[in-house]
């Protein structure tokens, strides 16, 4: 398959391989570039390695081969200071992982104050501005347990933004939400895309991927097997595997064999 290369790649993966300690191959040679301000949606069946891929990009998993570059700099060599890389690469997870011992503002300020050593008043002003932007201006003093799932995920997203990342990794951030809360979170992500934030988005929300992504990567069994524009991918997928995958999201009439996406 022809690789789409970008003029101005912020992230470059080259033949990235990863293997879990139990021998399971998580990534089996993944290569692609991401351009500045590009939004890339990663889709594929459950267990195909989407989370593993994102986790490799911010060092939560160690790669066994290949290389990952951020702004041209290899970040997967020996002696990488991941805590420095991670300030530039934000990640939001599926679980509502706000820190329960800190209130909303405390969650937002932890990174800026302790990692970026920012000034409190300035960071607070920025935090309040971001809360306002995601419609949570009045929740700065709330505790995580007092928030709905959708509110927590919105806070988790702006907690990443507080670090002014160059790249945002979103791993199925709406997968644990009640359906009526999915939209409010996706709206925030769509807003970021419109502002030019570079993002790698793993999602099962196909219509969302179609709407915000500049490019879709389809993964199966630890490899990227199709790369296309959303238009192309959703209308005329090139591989059988992608066609089967997309068919699972359509419900046309009476029950047939095959199941819902997991």
């Amino acid at each position, binding site marked *: 398959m022809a690789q789409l290369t970008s003029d101005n790649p912020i992230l470059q993966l080259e033949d990235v391989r990863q293997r879990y300690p139990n021998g399971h191959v998580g990534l089996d040679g993944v290569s692609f570039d991401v351009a500045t301000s590009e939004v890339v949606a990663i889709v594929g069946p459950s267990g195909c390695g989407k989370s593993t891929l994102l986790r490799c990009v*911010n060092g*939560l998993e160690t790669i066994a081969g290949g290389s990952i570059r951020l702004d041209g700099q290899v970040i997967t060599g020996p002696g990488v200071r*991941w*805590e*420095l890389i*991670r*300030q530039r690469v*934000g*990640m939001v*997870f599926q*679980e509502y*992982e706000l*820190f*329960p*011992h800190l209130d909303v503002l405390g969650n937002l300020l*932890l*990174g800026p104050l*302790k*990692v*970026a050593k920012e000034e409190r008043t300035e960071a607070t002003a920025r935090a309040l501005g971001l809360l306002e932007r995601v419609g949570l201006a009045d929740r700065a003093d709330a505790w995580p*347990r007092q928030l709905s799932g959708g509110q927590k995920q919105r806070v*988790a997203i702006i*907690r*990443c933004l507080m*670090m002014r990342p160059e790249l945002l990794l979103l791993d199925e951030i709406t997968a644990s939400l009640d359906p009526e809360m999915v939209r409010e979170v996706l709206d925030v992500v769509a807003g970021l895309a419109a502002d030019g934030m570079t993002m790698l988005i793993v999602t099962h929300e196909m219509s969302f991927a179609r709407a915000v992504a500049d490019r879709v990567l389809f993964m199966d069994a630890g490899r990227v097997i199709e790369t296309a524009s959303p238009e192309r991918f959703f209308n005329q997928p090139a591989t059988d595997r992608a066609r089967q995958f997309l068919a699972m999201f359509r419900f046309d009439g009476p029950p047939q064999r095959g199941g819902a996406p997991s």
Partner: protein
Amino acid sequence: MVNSGLEVLFEGRNFIRLLAGLWTSLRIALAAFGLSAVFGLPFGLLLASKHRVVKFILRAYLRFIWIMPQLVLLFVAYFYASSALGLNLSGQAAAVIVFTAWGAAELSDLVRGAVTSVPRHQYESAQALGLTANQVQRLVVLPQSARRLLPQAVNLVTRMIKTTSLIVLIGVVEVLKVAQQIIDANRFSHPDAALWVYGTVFVLYFAACYPISRLAKHLEKKWPN
């Protein structure tokens, strides 16, 4: 005489003696708890760590303490230590040693539970913000563990206070022993003193433990989950 038993309480220094007995119990429990914290916290952190050998030894220790009735430990420390090892331990010293051994085991298990109950994604989202491993522990894991640990540790204090009633059996004159002495001394003049004296002991234990267990409840409420 209608209130004969009640009179006994206020005869001479009896009530003061009961309070002094209670203080003996509390002092032993608190000293043992303090020492338990000194050992239990590092033991617990080690139990939550990856040090295989250390963990194996600590687990064996915990199992030993849990299998042994505290009374047996008290007898061993008090009688065995004095006769076989030639140490002349006072009953109080033996009690502090045994309750420390027990408390350290209990507390280390509570610490282990509190630390390991912090979910993996808490570590990961902290790391993802750029916190160093050290900062993740200090700013995210420890505060959350402490919130889980503190109510349980406070409850352990009340359990230790209650269990001090056993040390009467190795001759320590604590509140229960004082009560028995008062009752015995008045056996013929006030045959119904037992009810009143033990009733007072009941109230004293309650007065000592209730505020502590309220504190634990309060902490649990203040920091849910």
